[in-house]
C-alpha cells in the first residue's frame, strides 16, 4: 500500500510539472522580427525602403504633353503604355493590378500606422513622437497628391465641394473594405491639413534626404495650393520652404551649378556624356533632392526609341543651355528637331530644390512681382545661372505678367520635362483662367513623315479608376 502511495505521488508530481513549465516555454521573443512598441521602432519605420522606391514618374511622363511617340518602336510598348499615350478611356484590363499604386498604398499603410500609434509608443519624448508623426503626415500628403492628380478632376473651387475625390484612409487596417470616395474639397483639405499640422513639428535641419523636414512639408503645401488655385498661399508656402532651406544647417541642399558640375571631376560629369548623358549622383549625394523618393522611369534612356520630347519643347532650350545635355538626337532621323531623353532613368522625385524656386517664381508672378529685388525674375535667373553660362542666362526683360507666367511654365518644362510633373501642370492649367483653353494632344510619328494625333479630351485629365479598385470597392463611382 505504501508503495502505491509513492507511485501516486510521483504521478502527481509529473503532471504538475507538465502543467507548470508551459507558460514561459511559449514566450519566446524571436530575432529578426519585432512588433512596434518603442518610439525608436516607429522612427526606424521612416527609414524603410518601403518609403523610397516608386514607379510613378514613368507613368506620368507618358501622359505629359512634352512627350511624343515614334513608330514602329511605340508598337512594341506594353499595351498599357500605348493606351495611356493615346489617352484612351480604359488603360487596364479588368484583372490587371494598377502596379504604379502598389508601392504608394504600401507606403500609406505604414505612415498611417505611424501616425496612429507613435504617440502611444514607449521611450521617446513628446517632441520626438510629434516629429515622427509629422514626418509620416508629410509622407501621407505626398501619397494623396498622387491619388488626387491621377483620379480626381482638376480642382475647381466652385465645384470642389461636390466633385468626387478619393477615399480618405486614415487607418492601417488590412481588412477594411469598401472605401468610399470623399469629395474633392475634403480630399485637398485633408492634404493641406496634414501638411499644415506637420510643418511646426518638423525639423528645419535636413539630416537625411530620405526623411521629411520643414522644407519638404512647406514645398508640398505649395504644390497642393497651386493645384487648388490658391496662389497667394502657395507663394507663402514656397517662401517658407526657401526660408527653411536657407536656415538648414544640415547636409547640403541646393542647386547644382551645371557650369561646374558637368566638367571633369564634377558631380554630373560622365565619360559617356554624349551617349548616356550626365552622370547621376546617388540619392544620398544628390544635393538638389530634399525628399528622396526614387522613381524608375522607363520612358527615358539612351536606348529608348519609342518616346521622345516634341520638337516644340526641344526648341525651348537655348543652344547654351546645359540641360540639353540630358538629350541627344543620335540615331533620331525623325521627326525633325525632336530629342531623345538620355536619362536619368532612375530619378529622384519626392521634392527637389529647382521645383521650389520655380513655385516661388510662379507665386511672385501671380502677385505681379515681376522684376527687381525679391522678384520672380530673380528666382528664374538664380536657377538659370546654374543651368547655363551667365551670358545665356538672362531672363528677358519687359514681359507682361501673363508673358512671364508663360515663361515660368516654359522654364518648368525645360527643368522638369519627363519627370512627370508636367501632368500636374497640365491639370491645373486646364482650370486656370490665366491660361486660355488649349487643345492638347499626343502625336505619334511614323518614319515616312506621317503622324497620328491622339487628342486629350477634358475628361481624360482625370484617369478612370482602375477596375481592380472599382471591384474591391463595390458602389464606388467611376470617373466619366
Amino acid at each position, binding site marked *: 500500500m505504501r508503495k502505491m502511495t509513492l507511485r501516486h505521488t510521483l504521478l502527481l508530481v509529473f503532471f504538475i510539472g507538465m502543467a507548470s513549465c508551459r507558460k514561459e516555454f*511559449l514566450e*519566446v521573443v524571436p530575432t529578426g522580427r*519585432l512588433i512596434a512598441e518603442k518610439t525608436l521602432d516607429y522612427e526606424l519605420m521612416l527609414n524603410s525602403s*518601403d518609403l523610397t522606391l516608386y514607379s510613378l514618374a514613368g507613368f506620368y511622363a507618358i501622359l505629359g504633353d512634352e512627350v511624343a511617340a515614334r513608330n514602329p518602336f511605340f508598337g512594341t510598348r506594353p499595351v498599357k503604355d500605348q493606351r495611356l499615350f493615346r489617352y484612351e478611356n480604359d488603360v487596364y484590363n*479588368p484583372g490587371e493590378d494598377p502596379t504604379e499604386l502598389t508601392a504608394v498604398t504600401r507606403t500609406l499603410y505604414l505612415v498611417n500606422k505611424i501616425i496612429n500609434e507613435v504617440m502611444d509608443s514607449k521611450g521617446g519624448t513628446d517632441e520626438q513622437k510629434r516629429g515622427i508623426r509629422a514626418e509620416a503626415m508629410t509622407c501621407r500628403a505626398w501619397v494623396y497628391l498622387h491619388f488626387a492628380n491621377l483620379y480626381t478632376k482638376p480642382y475647381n473651387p466652385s465645384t470642389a465641394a461636390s466633385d468626387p475625390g478619393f477615399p480618405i484612409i486614415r487607418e492601417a487596417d488590412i*481588412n477594411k473594405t469598401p472605401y468610399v470616395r470623399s469629395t474633392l474639397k475634403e480630399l485637398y483639405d485633408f492634404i493641406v491639413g496634414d501638411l499644415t499640422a506637420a510643418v511646426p513639428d518638423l525639423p528645419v535641419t535636413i539630416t537625411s534626404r530620405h526623411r521629411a523636414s520643414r522644407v519638404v512639408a512647406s514645398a508640398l503645401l505649395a504644390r497642393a495650393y497651386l493645384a487648388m488655385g490658391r496662389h497667394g498661399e502657395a507663394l507663402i508656402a514656397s517662401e517658407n520652404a526657401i526660408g527653411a532651406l536657407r536656415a538648414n544647417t544640415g547636409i547640403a541642399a541646393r542647386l547644382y551649378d551645371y557650369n561646374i558640375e558637368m566638367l571633369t571631376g564634377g558631380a554630373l560629369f560622365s*565619360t559617356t556624356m554624349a551617349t*548616356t548623358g550626365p552622370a547621376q549622383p546617388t540619392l*544620398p549625394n544628390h544635393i538638389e533632392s530634399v525628399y528622396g523618393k526614387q522613381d524608375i522611369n522607363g520612358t527615358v534612356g539612351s536606348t529608348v526609341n519609342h518616346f521622345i520630347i516634341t520638337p516644340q519643347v526641344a526648341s525651348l532650350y537655348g543652344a547654351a543651355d546645359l540641360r540639353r545635355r540630358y538629350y541627344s538626337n543620335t540615331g533620331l532621323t525623325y521627326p525633325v528637331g525632336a530629342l531623345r531623353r538620355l536619362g536619368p532613368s532612375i530619378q529622384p522625385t519626392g521634392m527637389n530644390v529647382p521645383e521650389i524656386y520655380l513655385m516661388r517664381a510662379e507665386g511672385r508672378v501671380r502677385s505681379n512681382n515681376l522684376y527687381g529685388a525679391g522678384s520672380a525674375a530673380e528666382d528664374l535667373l538664380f536657377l538659370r545661372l546654374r543651368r547655363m553660362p551667365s551670358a545665356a542666362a538672362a531672363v528677358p526683360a519687359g514681359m507682361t505678367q501673363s508673358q512671364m507666367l508663360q515663361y515660368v511654365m516654359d522654364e518648368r518644362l525645360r527643368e522638369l520635362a519627363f519627370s512627370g510633373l508636367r501632368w500636374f501642370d497640365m491639370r491645373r492649367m486646364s482650370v486656370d483662367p490665366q491660361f486660355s483653353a488649349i487643345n492638347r494632344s499626343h502625336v505619334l510619328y511614323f518614319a515616312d513623315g506621317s503622324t497620328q494625333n491622339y487628342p486629350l479630351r477634358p475628361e481624360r485629365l482625370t484617369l478612370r479608376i482602375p477596375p481592380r479598385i472599382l471591384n*474591391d470597392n463595390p458602389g464606388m463611382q467611376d470617373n466619366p
Partner: protein
Amino acid sequence: MSKLNATSSKSHGSQARLRIMRLISVATLAACIHISTFAHAQVTLAETNITLQRVIRKLQSMTGFDFLYDADLVARSAPVTVRVKDASLDVVLTHCLKSSGFTHTIIGRSVVIRPAVDLSISSDIPPIPPMIVRGRVVDEAGAPLSGVTVTVKGSSTATSTTEAGDFELTVPSEESVLVLTAVNLERIEVVVKGRASFEIQMRPRIVYGQDVVIRPVNTGYQSLPNERSAGSAAKPNEVLIRDRANSTNIMQRLDGLVPGLTVSFAQGARASSGNRMMTGEGNANQYIVRGIGSVQADRAPLFVVNGIVIDDISTLNANDVEDVTVLKDATAASIWGSRAANGVVVITTRKGTARQKIRVQYDAFYNMQGTPEYDYYPRMSSADFIRTAEQIFDPVTFPWGTVSQFGTTTSGLSVSPHEVIQYNRFRRLISPQRAQQQLDSLAAIDNRSQMGEYFYRSQSLFNNTLSVSGGGNVHSFYGSFSYTGNQSGVPGERNGVYTMNLRNDFNISPRVRLFIITDLSRTEGSRKRSVSVDNRFLPYQLFADPVTGRPAEMSYLSYLVTDSVKRVFENQSRIDLNYRPLEELDRGKTESATMQTRLTGGASVRLLRGLRYEGNFGFGTTGSSTSNYDAEASFPVRSNLVTFTKAAVAPSTVPTYLLPPFGGQYSTTEQQARSWTVRNQLVLDTSFDARRHQLTLLLGQEAQERFSRSTSNTVLGYDPLLLNYQNVDFFTLGLTGVSNPVAARNTGNRSLYAQPVFSHTETMTRVSSYYSNAGYTFSRRYSLNASWRNDESNLFGVDKSAQRKPVWSIGGKWNLVQEAFLKRFNRIDILALRLTYGITGNAPSPGSATSQDVLVVRSSSFAPGPGLGISTYANKALTWERTENYNLGLDFGLLGRRVTGTLDLYRRNTTDLIGQLPINYLAGTSSIVGNFGDMNNRGVELSINTLNVVDRDFSWNTVLNLSYNRNTITRLQQTSSINDLATLVQQTKYYAGYPALSIFAYDWAGLDAMGDPQIFLADGSKYKTATTTNIPLAAARYMGSFQPLWNGGLLNFIRYRNFNLSSSIIFNLGHRGRRDVNEKYSGRFTPNRVTISPGSSPELQTGNFHSDLLKRWMKPGDELVTDVPVYLTTNTARRNTAYYVFGSQHVYDASFIKLRDITASMGLPQAVSRRLGAEEVRFRIQLSNLMLWKANRFGIDPEFQVTDINYTLGRVLPVGQGALTLGLNVRF
C-alpha cells in the same frame, strides 16, 4: 486437399523425429493456405476393416483438417472398424487410434497423429528431469494471441495458447527450445534456459497481400490491434517495399501501394525542377494524401519516424524501415493535431528481436537511369532556325544602334552570332553573298552532340547497406551502415550519402523497457561550374572547335553585348573579358556537406496493472556548410571587377581597381538546426470480464522546439592557398559607388556594390501540446475510438485565444464477423464496418498571419540607419483552416482470406481555407494570407488483395489499389481578380463550383485573315481584340483539373520456388494538362542575356524557338491550314497571342498508365548459398518506368510536364525512364 503424407522411411529414431519436425512446419504453411474448413465438424462414419490410412483420408476430406502422421508407421498398423454418427472429430479419432497404438493431438485445425510411445526419449541418453514452463504470447501491440501452437523442438510435445494467450507445457530439459507457430505469425524459437515463465512477442507473418487488414495500426503514439481500430489507415506491402529497392527514399517506394496516396515521381539530380503533374505547383506537393485539402503551399503529409516528427523524409535510409502506416482519416490522424490535416505517414525502423542469434544482411543496388533527354523539347533545327530568323529579322524596329548599345542591366536580349551577320549585311559592312555564306554555315551546325559530350552523362544511383541485428535476454539491437552514391547527369558533380543507424532495446525488467536509436547521416556534394544547357539554346552554337577542341567564346551572352563593347572594356580595364563556358568548368567549385544526427530514446514503465508510463524523447541536429569559390580567372569575378574599374588615363598608367584585382570570390553558408521533442504519456490498457471489455486510455503531453540558424559570409580577393582575402570599402562602394567606371552597372554611369557580404537568420518554433486518446471494445465486436488534442505554439504576434482550437475525432467499428449470425457463413473470415468523424485543422504557418503587424528590417541604403517594414500585416480576422472528415470503411476477408481488402468512402469538408487572399487594393497590399473559401474532397478508396494461386512451389498474388477523388471549391471569397476572362483563363486555379487547380481555356476560334488568334465569345461571335474588358466570363471553357480523378496501382507478385517476379503498374486518370506551345510571337529572334554570377550555373536555355513556329501564319489563306499565329515585330497590340497559348485546343488529356517497375529476384539454391557461408543470397533485376499508355498524342509524358498556371517551363527533362536496377541481398 492435403497431400501431406509422410514419405517412406527405412529407419526410426532421430531421423523420424526430424521428419516430424519438418512436417509440422510444412503443415503450418499448408494450414495457412487451407483454412476453408468446417470449424466445428460433426463426423458420421461407418466402416469395417478399413486401413487406418483410409480412415484418416476420409476424415481429412470430411473435416478439411490437416493431418500429420508418419505414413510408414500408419501403413503398418492393423485395420480398424468404426461406426459413429454426428460425433466430434476428437471422439472419432480416439476411437480409431486407441486400438492401433496411436494417439492424437488437435492443434487449431491440424491433427497430429503419433505412436502412443514417445519416440523422442532415446534409451542412450540419461533422462533429464522434465520441467513445466508457462508463458503468454502477445502481438506487437501487447494483445494476447490465442491459438498459437507451442511445440518443444525435437519432440512432438505441443500445445496451443488459450484465449488469453497463455500456455503451459512440460519440457524435457532446461535447454529445450520452444517453437511457436501460427497461421499468420512469424515462426519463432525461444530457448527455455531454465526460465519457467515467458512473455513472447510474435510478429505477423508477411504473407503477401494480407497485411492491410491484419497488421496492428501504429499511430506513432500507440499500436492498436487492427480489429479495434476504427480509423482509416493503410499499410503498404512490405515485401514490395523491400523489393522495390531502386531508390533510397521510402516515399518513392510507396507509389501505387497505398490507396489515396499520390506520389509524384521526381528523381535524380534535377528533381529540384520537380514534377508538378498532380498539383500544378512545386515540390512541396510531391506526396498528397486524399486530394488537396489545403491551398497553402505545403500539402505534404506529416512524417513521423519512431514517434518523432521529421521534416525531410528523404534522409531516412529506406532499408532501415520496418513498418509504414499511412493514416488518412480524422480518427487516425487527429492525434497528431494541427499538423496532421494532410495525413500522417508513420514509420518505424527496424529493431533486433530478443533471444535471436546475430543476423547480418547486406543489400546493394545499382540503378542506371541513362542520360537525361536534353533534346526532349520541341525545338527547331539549325537550318529551320536560320531560315525563320531571316524571315523575322526587322532592323528598322530594332535598330543596330539600340540593340548593340551597352546597357547597365544583365537582363535583356543578347546579340547572337546570326544577328550580327544580319545586321552587318543590313549596315552594308558585308556583302549579301558573304552574309548568305556565313548564315549557311551556321545552318549546317548541330550542337547537340557536343551538348551531350560536354555537359551530360549517364545518371546512376548506387546504394549498399550492411545491417546487423541480434538479441539476448535483456538487450537486442539493430544496426546498419549505408553508402549511397548519386551520379547526377552533370559531369563534375559528386554526391554521396553515408548513413548509420543503431537501435538498442533493453528489457531491463518485466516492468521497464528502454530503447535508444542513433541515426547519423552525412551528405557530401560538390559541383563545378557547368552550364545548364539543353536544346532550347541556340542550335548552332558549338561549345568547342570541332577540330582543335578549343573552347568557344560566347561573351555575347553576357552583359557585354557586342565584340566592340568587349574590346573597349578590355582596353580600358586591361582585363580579359572572354567567356568560354567550357573553360569556366574548373574555375569555380561549390562544395557542401551536411551532417545530420538524430537521437531517439524511449521508455516504457509498467506502473500498475494495465497502467504504464511511456516516454519518448527525440533530439536532432543538422549542420550543413556550403562554400562557393570562384577563381580570379573565372568570368563572374573578371566581369565584376570590370564594373568597379576606372579606366587608365593614359596608356602608361594602370587602371584603378576598386575591387581586389587578385584572388577570387569566396562565400560560405553555415546552417545549423536543432530540434527536440519530449513526450510523456500514461496508457491504461486493460480488460475485464474475460476480455469482454477492453479499454485503452491514453493521456499525454508533448513539447517540441525547433531552432535553425543560417549565416553566410562573402569575401573578395580570396586566395585558396594562402587562405587570405582583401579588404574592400563596401561603405563607399555601396552608397556612392564608382562614377564613370569601365562598365557601369547602374544608371547615370555609375556602379554600386549591392551584394550583401553577410547575412544571418534565425527561426525558433516551440509547440506545447496535450492529447488524449481512448479505445473501448466490447465483446470483440464493438469498438469505439475517440481522440482529442490541443496545440499551442509560440507564433509571434498572434492572439492567444486564436490557439485554442482543439482537434478531435470519434469513431466506431463493428466487427461483424464475430456476430453469431455471421458465423455460419464460414467463407467470411473478416468483416468489419468502420465509421469515423472528426475535425482536423491547419494553423496558418508561423509568421504568415498574425493579429499584429510584424516588422522586419527593410533598410534603404539611402536612409540614415536601419529601416523597418512590414513582413506580416495584422489580420485579426484570420482563423484556422478546419476540415471535417467523414469516413465509412469496410474491411473484408473471404475464402480463407484469399481475398482481403478494404473499401473506404470519405468526405472532407474544409472551411476557411488559408491562402493568398486578394484584399482591397487600397488597404496597403494586394493580397495577404487569409481565409478565402471552402472546399470539399469526396472519394472512394479500394484495396483488394487476392491470392490467386497458392501452392508449395508456386504462388501468385494480386493487389489492386484504386482511389477516386473529386474536389470542389464550394465557396470563394468574392475577389475582384476573377471577374475578367483573361484572369480566369490565365491565372485562376481556384474558382467556386469547380475543382481546385481547374483549367479554364479560351474557346479557340482559329486565326483570322491577318493571322491573329480569335476566340469564340459566349454568344458564338469571334473576337480578337487584345483587351478582354467587359467580356462575360461565360466565354471561358472549363477543361478539367490538373488533379487526377483516379489513381492507384495494380501489383502482381509471382513466386516460383526461389524465384520472385513482381510488377507494379501505376495509373493516373481523368486529369488534364496544358501543352507547351510556342509563346513568342513578337520581338527579336535571339536568346536572353545570361546572368553569370559567382556560384551560379549559367542557364543556356533560351535562344532556340518552338518548332510550332515553322507552321505559323505567313500569308493570307494560311489561316485555313494553321492555328499558329503570325509573328509580328511591331503593332503587337492589335491582337493577343495568349488566346492561342491558353486556347482550348491546347488542353490535353493527361491520363497515363505506366509500368512503374518490374522486378525479378532469384535466390541461390540453399546448398550453394550455404557453401558461401550465407543463409540466403538473392539477386534482383528491375526495370522502371515504361509508359504503357498515355491519352495524349503529342509525345508528352505527363509526369514531366509542368502544367503550371504560370506556364513558365512547359516540360522538364525526363530522367529515370526505362531505368535498370541490379540488386543483391545476402543474409548471413
